[in-house]
């Protein structure tokens, strides 16, 4: 294997390890729940993305076979990461926020979590940490 390929792959692996660790470290370190959501969803996508690029480079340079699977995995992760983050944020808003604790969207309307026409049967307010309005 050429030296430049080896250096690039090693660099990508180190970057990936660093970001993967920082993402999970942020999950432990940050104090409030919404901030914790930022750390893994961002840092991990770059971490896994670097691992996948490194793997693709490795298989091309070491064995001469081009594989599309890494591309598919990273595409899938990049498409699903915002959806997962949005869902978890909605769970947090649903369980722990009231209309008074959030900024208003505009006069006369409310956020979709609070304005649902059919009452949700989901878990309501597991931990009463904010006063009910």
């Amino acid at each position, binding site marked *: 294997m050429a030296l430049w390929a080896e250096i690039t792959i090693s660099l990508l692996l180190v970057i990936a390890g660093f970001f993967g660790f*920082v993402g999970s470290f942020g999950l432990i370190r940050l104090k409030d729940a*919404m901030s914790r959501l930022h750390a893994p*969803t961002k*840092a991990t*996508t770059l971490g896994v993305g670097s691992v996948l690029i490194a793997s693709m480079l490795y298989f091309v340079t070491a064995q001469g076979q081009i594989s599309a699977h890494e591309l598919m995995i990273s595409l899938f992760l990049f498409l699903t990461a915002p959806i997962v983050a949005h869902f978890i944020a909605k769970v947090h808003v649903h369980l722990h926020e009231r209309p008074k604790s959030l900024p208003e969207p505009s006069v006369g*309307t409310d*956020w979709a979590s609070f304005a649902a026409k059919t009452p949700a049967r989901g878990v309501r307010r597991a931990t009463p940490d904010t006063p009910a309005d």
Partner: protein
Amino acid sequence: MTLFHRIFPHPLLSVVLAVVWVLLVNTLTLNAVVFGAILGLVVPWLTRAYWPDAPRLRNPLMIAEYLLVVLWDIVVANVQVAVIILFKSDAARRPCWITVPLELRTPEAITVLAGTITMTPGTVSSDLSADGHAILVHCLHAPDPDAVRDQIKSRYERRLMEIFE
């Protein structure tokens, strides 16, 4: 409605399905291509009831520019978030909620904008207002919330307006 549209209700979806199938099989052989084509024919036809109408792209060439901008911002976002996590104490950090009023009206465009906000520097989109005219964004560290809102509007929403509307 022409015969072509009757057979292919969503041509782009058919092409994407076929290409994804060939990439999943990971070999470019004739039977993979044929089966991908069958999937591209059958799946849009079976699910056509759930795709009410296709969004019209006004300016498809802008998509490439938008993707490049977003990819660059994802890399920057990761570095910024990593620095905040590692070196900023919780007392110095200013997390906040901001409301971004939307001028976009196409559901697909709003979906793309929400995804983009989640992937870029220190912001997560959390909720949509009941009438769909504003989006709730949480910032990891925003000393100046108005600047974040203006950046979202000028950097992403303006480009999406040009693509979709």
